[in-house]
């Protein structure tokens, strides 16, 4: 067993760190594109050069650590799914992934229904829907492609908690192309879940690092906060959770290409571990900071919003815990 990154992946990590140090905001996405990061998320068959669990995990962990909110996951899922369906996306396509439905606790195909090759209903919290060239949509048991300018599609945008732009999508007899059964695309969807989990790992480890720095620097009662045993113990608990979260991501990344039943066990375990760790870190890092942790000006504020949002992507911890306990597949 070897937990070290390959030489290629270490180079990818170094180049990514460099880019994330030098670029932010609107300049970030072009810099990532120039360095080939989007292609590293895809296999050769999908028009990329990697697409492994290790690559996806290290890229999204780095993005999470840097606090970069980009709608990359939708495009990754969309391009991979279209390639698998034999309908490759245009170069430079940006694709939104419409999965969550309002009021259904992550169950699919409840608020949206299919009649022939038309879909009717709602999807919610769709990241990157505004500027997308196409939308990939889940229904009860299938994956569909909808053109961004399709008739009967209404996009109602709003800011998401994690600083991305999101939208409610309202479909009214909207023409759609069936890409295949959901289970046919479970490997592609699993890659999306891994991306969300790794992003959360990067975010929570950055939040814990920031909290540790603060505890060592901030003085009250004439001592640094870390000198108070009650705080030191709570901080130690957070450090343990970061390691557990890292192991859960490593487990899942290492089994991304395993047989579906084994991969799904790791997917569910990863989502449960990360969802819980993200919430714990969000709550405890605020408490350990005090008021400053609640402010928008200090970096922790944005991290907390991204951590609370992380659990809600593609099924939260409760959703995956139940499916794990019942021995159900991740996507069906």
């Amino acid at each position, binding site marked *: 067993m070897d937990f070290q990154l390959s030489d290629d992946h270490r180079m990818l990590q170094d180049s990514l760190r460099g880019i994330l140090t030098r670029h932010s905001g609107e300049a970030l996405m072009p810099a990532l594109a120039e360095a080939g990061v989007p292609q590293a998320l895809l296999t050769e068959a999908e028009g990329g050069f990697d697409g492994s669990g290790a690559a996806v995990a290290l890229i999204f962990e780095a993005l999470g650590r840097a606090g970069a909110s980009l709608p990359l996951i939708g495009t990754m899922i969309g391009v991979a799914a279209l390639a698998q369906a034999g309908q490759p996306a245009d170069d430079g396509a940006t694709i939104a992934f419409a999965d969550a439905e309002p009021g259904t606790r992550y*169950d699919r195909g409840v608020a949206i229904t299919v009649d022939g090759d038309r879909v009717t209903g709602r999807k919610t919290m769709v990241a990157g829907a505004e500027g997308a060239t196409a939308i990939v949509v889940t229904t009860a048991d299938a994956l569909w492609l909808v053109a961004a300018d399709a008739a009967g599609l209404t996009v109602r945008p709003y800011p998401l908690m994690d600083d991305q732009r999101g939208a409610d999508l309202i479909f009214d007899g909207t023409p759609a192309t069936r890409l295949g059964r959901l289970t046919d695309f479970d490997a592609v969807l699993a890659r999306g879940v891994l991306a969300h989990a790794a992003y959360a790992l990067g975010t929570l480890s950055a939040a814990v690092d920031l909290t540790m720095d603060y505890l060592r620097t901030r003085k009250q009662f004439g001592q640094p906060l870390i000198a108070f045993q009650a705080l030191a113990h709570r901080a130690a608990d957070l450090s343990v959770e970061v390691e557990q979260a890292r192991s859960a991501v490593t487990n899942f990344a290492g089994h991304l290409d395993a047989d579906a039943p084994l991969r799904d066990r790791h997917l569910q375990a990863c989502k449960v571990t990360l969802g819980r760790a993200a919430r714990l870190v969000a709550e405890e890092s605020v408490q350990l900071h*005090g*008021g400053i942790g609640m402010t*928008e000006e200090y970096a922790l504020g944005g991290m907390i919003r991204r951590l609370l949002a992380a659990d809600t992507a593609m099924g939260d911890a409760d959703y995956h815990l139940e499916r794990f306990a019942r021995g159900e597949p991740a996507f069906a």
Partner: protein
Amino acid sequence: MDMSFTAEETAFRDDIRAFLKAELDPALARKVRLHHDLTKAEMEGWHAKLQSKDWLAGNWPTEFGGAGWTAIQRHIFEEESARAHAPRIVPFGIAMLGPVLQKFGSKEQQDYWLPRILNGDDWWCQGYSEPGAGSDLASLRCEAVRDGDDYVVNGQKTWTTLGQHANMIFCLVRTNATGKKQEGISFLLIDMTTPGVSVRPIVLLDGTAEVNEVWFDNVRVPAANLVGTENDGWTYAKYLLTHERTNIAGVGFATAALDNLKRVAKAQRHRGQPLSDDPLFATEMASVEIELMAMSTTNLRMLSAAAQGQAPGIESSMLKIKARRSASVWMR
């Protein structure tokens, strides 16, 4: 021991309910239920309606214009108000400064300031925390130097809740920098329209700006605005904080939040059933309700002890801890 309400208490509750039904504007109640920010006029309007019944200061003795309610009556009022989604009474004048002036203020201060709290002439805010004095409050440095009939105040306060609406601030200031740090603090009432006072909002991670920084630059404050004895302010500050904390568990508001959660759980669906029928969710919601049942009685026991003249000490801090932990469970 008798856990049931007396006939008088039941009649009191019915009075409160009838008042809330008649006087609480449904549009305002909706804003409270959805946690929207209220305007200053909305908060003042609700205070005025309560004061028209002499119910604004339930915690004050009748000799000071309060309602002189028992601990049980206050509990009933808070629970009914919260269940009806009435605005929370702004605590700074009523719950914090009022009791301090009644116990430690001069007759002149009581006669002048207490009626102005009740009739809404003054909006108070709290000048306790400083950037370097959070949990270690006694290390505060904002200084007041006696100069003739005035104090001259220089320094900074922070986390000043609703300070943007306030015309008056009660401040802990340093009047003696030698000796034990607790022994050089005084309690001063400062008019915020005095030259040299400036207020800057702090934006929080949810985008709201409810808290502020307040600066004092050579602010002249009449020495008549000193409460009690110079350098004895720490005693008054602690007295105020125990009163602040007996209501801090927010049991009524937790009850309202639980009602809201039940409503949402009936509307959301999971696996084809209302979420409230889902066994995992139902047991977790039941755990929250059970915790709230105990917390409600904990709060009541402490209020009752306080009413019998026992100082609410360590128990009121326990309420703050318990409320914080419970809030974290409810957030999920």
